[in-house]
């Protein structure tokens, strides 16, 4: 079975699950699962494919969330436009802050993204125009797809919106990966020098990757704001969101389209259920368990769970090939 077929079947299963299981709590978890899988895919473009580690993607998530919230709250503009505008603003911000950061090598770039994420959080905390630390309550509108507002118990509608956005993210990721740009990003990840000797303008391609990654991340952030209907800077800009994106993708498989899906399928239920069991924020237990998983995986299987699955399948094929020879 090839990659595309497996992905297609996986998507159908994901799309049908919330129909089959009619629990609102389950549907809520499915929404967060698809949202975070999408965030992982977007992050994968800059870090998995291009090899530039970003610890600051919450910044783009938050920018998307704030743009779509402010559009509805201040101007009464449909959230769909807010999603698009948030994506574009994140793309512009990402380009401006990444350009100097790309001059830094390896670890320093990662640290710079960490700092940028925190700076942007602080900007929003003290920015009166967007109500600072108080946060924004999205006003009630007429229910329907246009306003992206439904009866609070109608999780199914929200699920299919985020599912559609997720498919959009996947299509973009697939187009990036299987085009000239994907080849170039993988070359850059391997070696900047080798890339430049092949005529690749490394800064330009890293900027493209970062721009696309930030754009997609912000669109998903925009959806999140419309879904929860109330946001403040600590909800949408925290380091923990950046870290969740990093951890789930690394656990699932860096630079692989299945990685974030597998990672999110483990992390999101884990964190939701520890929250239910231990109450409140789950005492961060989810991230502790998850961190341990990542350490184990990183030590034994640098390609994540996807790599593990591939190894097992590889062994199966080898054994199948050996069988007839024996008989």
């Amino acid at each position, binding site marked *: 079975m090839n990659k595309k077929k497996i992905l297609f079947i996986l998507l159908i299963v994901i799309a049908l699950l919330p129909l089959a299981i009619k629990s609102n709590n389950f549907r809520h978890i499915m929404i967060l699962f698809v949202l975070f899988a999408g965030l992982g895919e977007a992050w994968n473009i800059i870090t998995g494919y291009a090899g530039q580690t970003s610890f600051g993607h919450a910044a783009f998530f938050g920018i998307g969330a704030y743009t779509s919230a402010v559009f509805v709250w201040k101007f009464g503009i449909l959230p769909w436009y807010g999603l698009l505008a948030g994506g574009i603003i994140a793309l512009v911000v990402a380009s401006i802050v990444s350009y100097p950061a790309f001059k830094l090598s390896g670890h320093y770039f990662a640290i710079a993204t960490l700092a940028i994420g925190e700076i942007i959080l602080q900007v929003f905390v003290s920015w009166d125009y967007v109500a600072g630390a108080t946060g924004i309550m999205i006003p009630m509108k007429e229910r329907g797809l246009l306003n992206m507002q439904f009866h609070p118990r109608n999780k199914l509608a929200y699920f299919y919106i985020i599912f559609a956005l997720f498919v959009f993210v996947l299509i973009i990721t697939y187009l990036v990966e299987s085009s000239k740009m994907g080849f170039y990003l993988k070359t850059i990840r391997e070696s900047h020098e080798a890339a*430049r000797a092949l005529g690749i303008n490394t800064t330009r391609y890293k900027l493209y990757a970062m721009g696309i990654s930030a754009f997609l991340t912000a669109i998903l952030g925009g959806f999140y704001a419309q879904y929860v209907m109330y946001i403040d800077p600590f909800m949408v800009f925290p380091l923990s969101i950046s870290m969740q994106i990093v951890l789930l993708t690394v656990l699932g498989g860096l630079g692989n389209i299945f990685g974030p899906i597998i990672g999110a399928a483990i992390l999101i239920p884990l964190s939701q259920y520890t929250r239910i069991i231990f109450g409140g924020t789950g005492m961060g237990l989810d991230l502790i368990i998850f961190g341990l998983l990542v350490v184990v995986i990183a030590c034994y299987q640098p390609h994540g769970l996807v790599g593990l699955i591939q190894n097992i399948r590889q062994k199966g094929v080898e054994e199948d090939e050996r069988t007839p020879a024996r008989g």
Partner: protein
Amino acid sequence: MKEPLLEVKGITKKFGNLLANNDVSFNVNKGEIVGLIGPNGAGKTTLFNCITGMYKTDGGQVFFRGRDITNMAPDRICKQGLTRTFQIVKTIKELTVRENVMTGAFLHTNRLKEAEEVADEILELTNLREKAEQPGNSLTIADRKRLEIARVLATRPEMLMLDEAMAGLNQTEIREAMELCLKIKREGITLLIVEHIMEAIMPISDRIVVLNAGEKLIEDKPDIVANNDEVIKAYLGEGYHAKSKKY
């Protein structure tokens, strides 16, 4: 026909107090193979880095096809038709051999199909055709070095610089690598080759430039260089003697 394609004029490069390249000048003419030799630490790789824009030089100029390319960005120099391989191979492990070569072919096309066609042509030329579908990290060191050459060839260079493309190869593999160099020359591509293995570089080079402690020692025909006392003293003591030519 002595038409200089590459002109290196007084290149100087310092690392702190260390003069890695000191006022090095030489030309490479169109269609030639020029060998650049010298003991370890002589400054050969540094010179490559200065010529291809990987390092900022501390003096001197580089001209390619008459154009000043001194301190130009490496990717722009590649687009002018001058590129190089690295002493340490940089195979893209997750990509197949064909896909590795395609990364070079994309310089002149945005289309996957076209890049594939160019890659297949180059794989044919470099005898890597049967290994096209193998992942990059499954290759032997000899094939990896060959793949490095294939990948830069796919950018359709006018001149190619190879940095120790034969290090770590056995006798048969060295012979095959020498044949590949001559084949590339017949394709009309000019070559500047850094090589440690005398038996490999001497027979295929039209001219030899010897570098020692950052300075150019001599520049001449291989047999003259091999018999030069200074060169023998500086370098060729390491087992090779012109008198015992085995090629």
